[in-house]
């Protein structure tokens, strides 16, 4: 039987990793909030990572058990419609003088950033607690 305290580190690690990806996409969305494009197809769409639980033991590394953790399944585009703006002086404007703005909602991205930061902190706390319990278990030899 494997040491279960050990796998807590692996599980929390996958969560830290996934939350970091989420924070990265949020940063990318915020950075591209003011991006304009010449066509609706090329307009920047906000990215959202979709998480998936790691339930399959085969998909995890035997030396570093992460079964029950989480991974980023794929990154989806936000389906919110693209806004267009009449701005003929913009170098990116098309023949009708329209530019296409990104569909990033800054307010929503800030909320997303806070949520992922909280989730990250939760998992750091899990690692801390597991670390303390492990070292206390080792201290049993000194009893």
């Amino acid at each position, binding site marked *: 039987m494997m*040491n279960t*305290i050990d796998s807590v580190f692996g599980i929390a690690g996958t969560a830290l990793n996934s939350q970091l990806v989420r924070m990265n996409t949020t940063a990318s969305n915020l950075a591209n909030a003011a991006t304009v494009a010449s066509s609706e197809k090329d307009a920047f769409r906000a990215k959202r990572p979709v998480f998936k639980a790691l339930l399959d033991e085969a998909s995890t590394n035997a030396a570093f058990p992460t079964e029950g953790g*989480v991974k980023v399944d794929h990154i989806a585009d936000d389906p919110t419609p693209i806004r267009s703006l009449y701005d003929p002086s913009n170098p990116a404007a098309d023949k009708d003088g329209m530019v296409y703005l990104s569909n990033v909602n800054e307010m929503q991205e800030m909320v997303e950033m806070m949520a992922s930061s909280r*989730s990250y902190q939760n998992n750091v706390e*899990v690692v801390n607690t597991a670390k303390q319990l492990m070292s206390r278990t080792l201290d049993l030899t000194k*009893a």
Partner: protein
Amino acid sequence: MAMNIFNDAFGIHERALQVRSQRLEVLAKNIANADTPNYKAQDVDFKAMLQESKKEYMTATNDKHFAGIEEGPDNGMRYRIPFNNSFDGNTVEISVEQAQFGKAAGDYQATLQFLQDRIGGIRKALKGE
């Protein structure tokens, strides 16, 4: 007779520590999947799991053995019933999980303390002071 002191030295606490660390793992899974769509939070039925760890099932050690009646072992896992439903089908409520994780960590330390006391007692007996 004398060997019993060592065989049963830790009593129930040895198994209890295993179950407690398993519960910590389950709660860590819940916290890790707090943002995963359709993830269903789980918890450990401590009593069922401890009883399960005591049971010994008959196993076929020779290919001439008959297959026993398959009685699926109860692994003690239960799905949590959330207080509120969420849009994405996730049943992890982070405040509940945090509270339970704190309690589980405390329980683990309590079991450790029991074990430590047992070890101290045996050590004292061995020294004969």
